[in-house]
């Protein structure tokens, strides 16, 4: 990742220079499309991102999702849309403030402004029909907003989107998004044919008429922008090796499920995990698999456990509240050593919390949620690509270690889109048919290896292997036992599996200075933002580095050694920690963020933490700011 240090994208405000005779060349751009819900902003943005990716740019998308299904029109809480960050180099996160926003009305912009994602200099392409709306209140709101935007230093360019679309369709509300796609294609000198193709692919099922209309709308937008908007940028692309795919994290996880050879996903709908099953519901039969929507989360994991017990290692997908309900069954799976994959797409908590927003708040409950000792494997992908590959690993770990494996992704990875090298599917990933050959009756059902705690398992249908799985304390022979030694032995054997797995893990790679003032420790979806911030800080001479953990249980080895090389260790994550300066809060009372707790248990290093529960993906700018602040404090500067 260190190459990134030489790219301009990494150094904060992106320099751009207008070539005398053409578009401004720039290393990257952050574009948003924001509308009322149901106006298709997301679709337009996804297509735009796909086109950028096809042209060889790095991309990252973030969906802007309102809480209601159909919030009232022109409401701040109703902002619906998408952010697309694209650049010459690989793009790994949502970036900081946007460069350009296309807005279908002025009110939804306030929804975004309250999230603090816009800065002075922002360009806004704004539907201007509101200026002449027949409702006085609307006209006034619009006028007031324009004044306010001006004060904020935004450059507003009014665009008669609806008026233009009306020339082609009587229902412009449904076509505007394509018009916008056309405009953006023009402004960012995209290949219009790519746009037209993309759209014919997307609407293929709706028939040629629909495709044609949408293509005409794209062209209209394209032409309009060329003629009327004096903005033109070029984001060159770096040459790229091999084939790439582009998808979001939930699609990647869904593909991973299929490629892992699992045949059963049992789930209960819950945002932001559900779209994994939406995706799978359509395609899973293609590999002979099945999505079971259960009556609740408890039943879903029970069903998956039943299938796993019967030899068909299964998967369940959920998020916070669902995890809470699965707690008891997860304990059973640990105790009775049932392989199982749990994909946990974290969302904002506690309780129903912020259902559509991001948080990394399910780490502690995933590891420590079940009563009694419940050692299980917990790991977390940090990129879209890892969302795919880690599922395959999860299945393998689950079966090798005969245990549930929790994969922690989050709302940011779930909906973020990014290109990555097209995976080469391996036949060995697809598990062979389950073993039904006779089992040596002399071998007990829990034939624990003394060193690793690992044991093979009999599968129903295997003659000679008949045993009764139970969640009660049991012996090596699978028999219920209440004596002190049996329970102690069982607990030790299950715990030993984590130590055995840990031995196979490598210490995390240090990204940035091999030693220095500050080490940032992160996990999960924050990888891109942290890396970018570190690169930027280093380019300014700060001695900072980062490590990014994948395995959380067991925790990756080698942390002490790495920590020892830095003056200070700072955990950065998206979950709650007490701020330093609050009333009654001091170093003795401060409640730490979740990874910080884990690390303190393991290393007793005095790690500090910096986190928030804003429900937003981390931006590199925020992390950069904290790096500067922390190193400043270390250097004795103002705190």
């Amino acid at each position, binding site marked *: 990742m260190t190459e990134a240090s030489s790219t301009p994208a990494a150094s904060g405000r992106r320099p751009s220079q207008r070539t005398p005779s053409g578009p401004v060349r720039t290393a990257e751009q952050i574009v948003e499309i924001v509308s009322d819900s149901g106006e298709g902003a997301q679709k337009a943005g996804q297509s735009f991102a796909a086109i950028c990716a096809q042209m060889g740019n790095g991309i990252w998308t973030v969906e802007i999702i309102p809480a209601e299904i159909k919030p009232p029109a022109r409401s701040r809480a109703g902002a619906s849309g998408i952010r697309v960050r694209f650049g010459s180099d690989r793009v790994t996160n949502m970036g900081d403030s946007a460069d350009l926003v296309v807005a279908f009305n002025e009110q939804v912009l306030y929804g975004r402004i309250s999230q603090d994602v816009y800065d002075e200099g922002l360009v806004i392409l704004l539907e201007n029909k509101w200026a002449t709306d027949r409702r006085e209140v609307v006209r006034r709101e619009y006028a007031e907003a324009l004044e306010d935007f001006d004060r904020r230093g935004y450059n507003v360019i009014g665009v008669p989107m609806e008026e233009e679309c009306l020339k082609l369709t009587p229902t412009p509300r449904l076509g505007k998004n394509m018009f916008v796609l056309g405009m953006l294609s023009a402004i960012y000198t995209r290949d219009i044919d790519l746009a037209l193709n993309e759209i014919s692919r997307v609407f293929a099922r709706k028939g040629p008429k629909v495709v044609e209309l949408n293509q005409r709308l794209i062209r209209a937008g394209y032409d309009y922008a060329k003629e009327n908007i004096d903005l033109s940028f070029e984001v060159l692309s770096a040459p790229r090796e091999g084939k790439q795919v582009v998808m979001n994290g939930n699609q990647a996880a869904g593909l991973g499920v299929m*490629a892992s050879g699992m045949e*059963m996903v049992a789930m209960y709908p819950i945002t932001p995990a559900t779209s994994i099953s939406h995706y799978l519901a359509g395609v899973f039969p293609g590999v002979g698999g099945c999505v079971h929507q259960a009556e609740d989360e408890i039943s879903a994991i029970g*069903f998956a456990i039943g299938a796993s017990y019967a030899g068909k290692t299964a998967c369940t997908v959920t998020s916070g509240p669902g995890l809470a309900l699965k707690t008891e069954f997860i304990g059973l799976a640990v105790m009775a050593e049932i392989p199982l994959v749990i994909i946990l797409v974290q969302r904002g908590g506690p309780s129903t919390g912020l259902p559509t927003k991001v948080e990394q708040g399910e780490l502690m409950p995933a590891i420590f949620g079940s009563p009694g000792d419940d050692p299980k494997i917990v790991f977390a992908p940090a990129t879209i690509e890892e969302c795919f590959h880690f599922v395959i690993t999860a299945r393998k770990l689950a079966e090798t270690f005969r245990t549930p494996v929790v994969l922690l992704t989050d709302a940011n990875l779930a909906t973020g889109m990014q290109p990555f090298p097209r*995976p080469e599917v391996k036949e060995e990933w697809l598990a062979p048919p389950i073993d039904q050959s006779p089992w040596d009756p002399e071998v007990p059902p829990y034939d624990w290896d003394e060193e690793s705690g690992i044991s093979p398992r009999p599968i129903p249908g295997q003659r000679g292997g*008949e045993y009764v799985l*139970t969640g009660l304390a049991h012996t090596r022979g699978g028999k219920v036992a209440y004596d002190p030694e049996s329970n102690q032995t069982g607990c030790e054997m299950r715990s030993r599996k984590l130590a055995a797995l840990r031995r196979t893990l490598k210490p995390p790679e240090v990204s940035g200075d091999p030693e220095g003032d500050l080490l940032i420790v992160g996990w999960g979806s924050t990888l891109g933002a942290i890396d970018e911030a570190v690169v930027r800080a280093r380019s300014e001479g700060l001695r900072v580095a980062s490590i990014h953990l994948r395995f959380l249980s067991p925790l990756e080895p080698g942390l002490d050694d790495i920590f020892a090389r830095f003056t200070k260790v700072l955990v950065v994550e998206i979950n709650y920690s007490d701020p330093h300066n609050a009333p009654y809060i001091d170093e003795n009372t401060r409640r730490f963020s979740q990874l910080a707790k884990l690390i303190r248990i393991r290393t007793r290093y005095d790690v500090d933490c910096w986190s928030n529960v804003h429900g937003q993906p981390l931006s590199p700018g925020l992390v950069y700011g904290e790096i500067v602040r922390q190193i400043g404090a270390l250097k004795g500067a103002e705190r």
Partner: protein
Amino acid sequence: MIGVESDWSSEPPPRYFTLEDYEGGEARWCPGCGDLAVLTAVKRICRDEQLPPEKVVCVSGIGCSSRFPHYMKTYGFHGLHGRALPVACGVRSRRPDLHVWVATGDGDCCSIGAAHWIHAVRYNMNLTVMLFNNEIYGLTKKQTSPTTPQGFATNTHPLGAVLPPLKPVSATLGFTNVSFVAQTVDWNIAHLYATLKKAHEHKGLSFVHILQRCPTFTPGVFDDLQSDPERILLLEHENGIPIDPAVARLYPKKLVHDPLDSNMARILADRVEELPLGLLYCDPDRPGYEEFTGRGIGMGVGEKLEFLNRELDRFTI
């Protein structure tokens, strides 16, 4: 009946199973506990049907009755309180070759597991579900269950259970896609056997409500049913539970009841004067969810790889 299941590898010499082949650990129920009779009946059915022990899976929740799997020498899953049915459905979902018996108590099924009860009945997967109704929480020592008779004193309601008892059969008959509902008693071994056998043969979820004696905590609650044959209404029908002549002699009150008549079934189930014994409802043609969950089980690796590559192509830029 000796036979080789089509999905069982036919190795020579053909195996013949005796009752002992199904004998698990020594049963640890109280003396006189009705659970034992059910265990015996199931073992006999396995033997009579010559089910290979490795192809039999007994799934249960938690409770006295849920200790059932431990006493069978087959595969077993003694899981969580109330959660036998989801697990059993999961087992069947991709393993149509397994014979799945479910043992669940009145607390297990009708209280904590009630949501799964409704939905498993609707999924109608091929399971034999035995509801052991002793009208009490046995394992935890005499707390009120949803089926405890109103006024019966328990440890949580020392002045007597407050509400009228839930009727498992009446409720089940109201669930969509119900396909088999029968009622029997632990103390009539012939009827118990015949009922469970019919249930095992039924393709779909067969729900068998078994009145089960718990001499320890609900002694006497079935006394009148046991002592007064007039309290029993024996259901007869060519599609019903085959009736042993001895059973027929025992119970003078009989009714010819067509198991397809759901309306009559519900009227019978609500009857308080007599307990209808036999098959209340059976519709062999209800859709089964395994049709859906089991699709593609045998798909070859080549086909899968091809599909995966096609699917990846869709995302390729």
